[in-house]
């Protein structure tokens, strides 16, 4: 347990000379009102047996409301970047507490570190209370900066968007000056900017175009889709949804004989994107981003795909909304609206931590979605690197925090089979009971997540309490808890709005490829979120019956394999589906392994599940899959 004896926190506020009494009171109030944002997610805290509310901190959903960043376990590199963003968005005074891992490289030193245990958490909270009361204001707090917070600036040719350089210069193809543009993230993103901020730029563009006399008017196309530039239209009444307005500004600068050339390849995403270019835009002072479209197919933003062929502005340059939106992609009801790409990123309340869901939203409906895991494990072992068997088991178990017992069992079985050990029914029974116990705990954790997602506070609390009890319960205690679990299931059946919330959401029929575990079994019923809920509740009951019949659980531990060699394969039904491990053992060292999990297949289903759904329904559908981003093999 490491703590700073001087009781300072790096995320303190600047102390003012005056109002020290107020600052003192405020510090004490802050110390008594700790709210934490748990990274990777509260479900990880529960699976490690940590009860954060009992320790005295309130769990928040967004970094804006949090004063403590609670990091549990090791974080992968991508998660470290996300955590840096989250930390930057927390208002000061803010503190970092790390349980059971090294501080990520992107963050400043942790204010408090401890092991992953409830005792460590309670010590952390005690320390935080004292540190905030004394050190919420400090004389010279450090700035927090991280590379991921800064935009990359790319220089792009206005006419050839594929020409991208890191330094200013001129385009090799046409000789035009390259224009600076911010890029917010390394992943290809597209942007729909419609900010007010473009107002000033519109003028530049017009002049630019006019002088340029370029025949390509793709640049103008995106203007049509920018909201509003009231300065331009003192003579017209527009609200900023009226794109005609821009046409008026258009006509001020051009004569009507203009024929707009446009990209022939309307269907090609790449070309469409070129029209979205923001030539002449100087983003210098703006915190405003325009992302070049990457390989992403953004049919959604086809703002560029404007077909103005033969287009007649008419005598007043008026363009009706029908014409303005002629080639934009339509929603299901035929309207052409602005689509935004919104991340429901790694640390989103209700979704499993580490799952990055990027949804393209048309209003509050999803048009397309993409899910990636930021904490997934890499599959093959490095060439030539052998791992000791015990180390391998520990590593695999700690890499899967939400199902550590299952993966420990998987590794033990695979290694024992590889070294040729015979099955021992006593240990097998004990291990199976432990596996079933984890199944119950895992499903309860999923129920808690469901409660968070649905705003069902009672379910979250009850499921979390039961999960903490059951995690390490003995067989006898588990039998005692049976009525509590049955009461939970009965209560869920009686909850009024739950069925309408879950029925018909996220349907995955039984023919879908790659289904496994409760999702697959529920697919035989109705395949929707409601069926999955009941399937998991039934599995809890079945597991309890098994435990009652079998005996006491025992955590899987590797039996003596000596210096065995061979190849072995094992399959375990984890709470989320089937996991298969095949490995090669040489003199007691694991030479190579191959892991296949259910979640790796399920994550591919997310894109089809969310398409065309309302946002809330889409998120519930993803949640009902019970994805564990750790089990997604990269």
């Amino acid at each position, binding site marked *: 347990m490491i703590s700073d004896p001087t009781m300072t926190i790096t995320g303190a*506020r600047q102390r003012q000379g005056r109002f020290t009494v107020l*600052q003192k*009171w*405020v*510090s004490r*109030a*802050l110390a*008594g*009102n700790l709210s934490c944002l748990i990274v990777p997610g509260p479900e990880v805290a529960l699976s490690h047996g940590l009860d954060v*509310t009992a320790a005295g901190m*309130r769990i928040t*959903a*967004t970094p*804006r*409301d949090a*004063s403590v960043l609670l990091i549990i376990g090791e974080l992968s590199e991508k998660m470290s970047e996300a955590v840096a963003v989250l930390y930057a968005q927390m*208002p*000061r*005074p803010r503190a970092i507490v790390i349980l059971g891992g090294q501080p990520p490289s992107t963050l400043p030193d942790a204010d408090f570190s401890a092991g992953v245990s409830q005792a460590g958490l309670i010590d952390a909270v005690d320390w935080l209370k004292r540190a905030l009361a004394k050190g*919420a204001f400090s004389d010279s707090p450090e700035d927090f900066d991280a590379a991921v917070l800064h935009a990359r600036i790319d220089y792009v040719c206005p006419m050839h968007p594929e020409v991208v350089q890191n330094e200013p210069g001129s385009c090799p193809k046409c000789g035009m000056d390259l224009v600076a543009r911010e890029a917010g993230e390394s992943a290809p993103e597209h942007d729909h900017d419609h*900010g*007010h*901020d473009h107002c000033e730029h519109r003028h530049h563009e017009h002049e630019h175009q006019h002088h340029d006399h370029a025949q390509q008017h793709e640049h103008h196309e995106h203007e049509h889709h920018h909201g509003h530039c009231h300065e331009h239209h003192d003579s017209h009444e527009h609200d900023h949804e009226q794109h005609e307005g821009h046409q008026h500004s258009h006509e001020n600068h051009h004569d009507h004989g203009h024929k707009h050339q446009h990209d022939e390849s309307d269907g090609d995403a790449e070309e469409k994107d070129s029209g979205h270019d923001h030539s002449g835009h100087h983003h210098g002072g*703006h*915190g*405003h981003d325009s992302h070049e479209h990457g390989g992403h197919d953004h049919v959604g933003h086809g703002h560029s795909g404007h077909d103005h062929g033969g287009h007649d502005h008419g005598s007043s340059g008026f363009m009706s909304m029908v014409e303005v939106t002629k080639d934009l992609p339509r929603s299901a009801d035929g309207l052409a609206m602005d689509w*935004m790409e*919104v991340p*429901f990123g790694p640390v*989103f*309340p*209700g979704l499993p931590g580490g799952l990055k869901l990027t949804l393209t*939203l048309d*209003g*509050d409906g999803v048009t397309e979605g993409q899910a990636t895991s930021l904490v997934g494990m890499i599959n093959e072992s490095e060439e030539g690197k052998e791992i000791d068997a015990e180390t391998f088991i520990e590593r695999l178990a700690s890499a899967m925090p939400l199902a550590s017992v299952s993966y420990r069992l998987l590794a033990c079985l695979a290694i024992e089979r590889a070294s040729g050990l015979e099955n021992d029914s006593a240990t097998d029974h004990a291990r199976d009971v432990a596996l079933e116990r984890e199944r119950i705990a895992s499903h309860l954790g999923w129920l808690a997540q469901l*409660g*968070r*997602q*649905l*705003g*069902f*506070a*009672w*379910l979250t609390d009850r499921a979390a309490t039961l999960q903490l009890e059951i995690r390490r319960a003995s067989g006898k205690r588990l039998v005692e808890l049976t009525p509590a679990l049955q009461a939970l299931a009965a209560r869920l059946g009686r*909850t*009024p*709005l*739950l069925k*309408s*919330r879950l029925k018909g959401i996220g349907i995955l029929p039984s023919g879908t490829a790659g289904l496994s575990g409760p999702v697959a079994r529920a697919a035989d019923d109705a395949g929707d979120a409601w069926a999955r809920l009941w399937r998991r509740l039934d599995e809890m009951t079945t597991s309890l019956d098994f435990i009652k019949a079998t005996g006491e659980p025992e955590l899987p531990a590797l039996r003596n394999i000596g210096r065995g060699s061979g190849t072995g394969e094992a399959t375990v039904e984890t709470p989320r589906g089937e996991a298969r491990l095949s490995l090669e053992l040489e003199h007691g060292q694991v030479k190579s392994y191959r892991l296949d999990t259910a979640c790796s297949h399920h994550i591919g289903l997310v894109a089809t599940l969310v398409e065309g759904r*309302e*946002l*809330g*329904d889409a*998120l519930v559908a993803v949640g009902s899959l019970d994805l564990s981003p750790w089990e997604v093999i990269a």
Partner: protein
Amino acid sequence: MNFAIVLFAWLGSAWLLAVIEGWTITGRLRLTAPLLSGLAHLGRESIVPRTPDRVFFETAPVLLLIVAVLGAAVLPLAPTLVIADLATGALFINAALAYVLVALIMAGWGPNGAYAMIGGWRFLGQLIAYAMLIVMPITAVAMRAESLVTTVIVGSQDSLWNIVYQPLGFVLFFIAAMALAFRAPFDLPTAPGELGGGVDAEYTGVRLAVLRLARLTLVITLASATTVFYLGGWHGPLLPPWAWSLIKTLAVAVLMLLAGRYLPRIREADLMRWCWTLGIPLALLNIIVVGLLVLVVP
């Protein structure tokens, strides 16, 4: 003098409601919790998002607070304990509460963030669902009282509370009041599980404190409106009238709180469909039934 008493009483009820809310969440009853929580918010930084619509961003929390207090200003604690006993009291409440929508749309549009924006527009959909279910039951209540003055409305219930006289109206009004206060299960604009905080998401520090205070006061206002319109206001044996008003208001507010705790969030499509296909015909039926009753019963 009355003014100060009533204002104090409403603030006190908001305080008590905050304490009770804290009790349901943490399990501990701390009477100083709201003060400490307010101080803590004051002490945190108040961050303004980049490129916001500054006017909207700043106005939204203040407007929400003003709306909630204005609504409470026409609701009586006792026959003479009311801030402003307007001749059009019941109508005024509706007018004031309409600005809740304005405040939330501002809070959604202002910060220029995706979650807030979706939350704001969702609330507009919610308003379209609940607005009629607030207004129609109030009309039925006014029919019985032959007046829009809130004290007269309470006075008309001295023989029989409206909850017995017009139970359908009560149910509809209660549900619509929860939707207006955007409390769970109708907390679509601020859903933590779907929108990461929604309209609340970008407010920090003192602005968040004002927003939270405004939400609490809004619940109190609506609970008090339910009491005035349906639960007989200050009528009751033994205790002084103002005590009964406050007790009933707090009871309704706690009921709203509990409903939120024990029910999952409703889907927006379902909310709108049920309000319009089921709610409005029922509200119209309520008006007709009350119309007949008013003529028949002396």
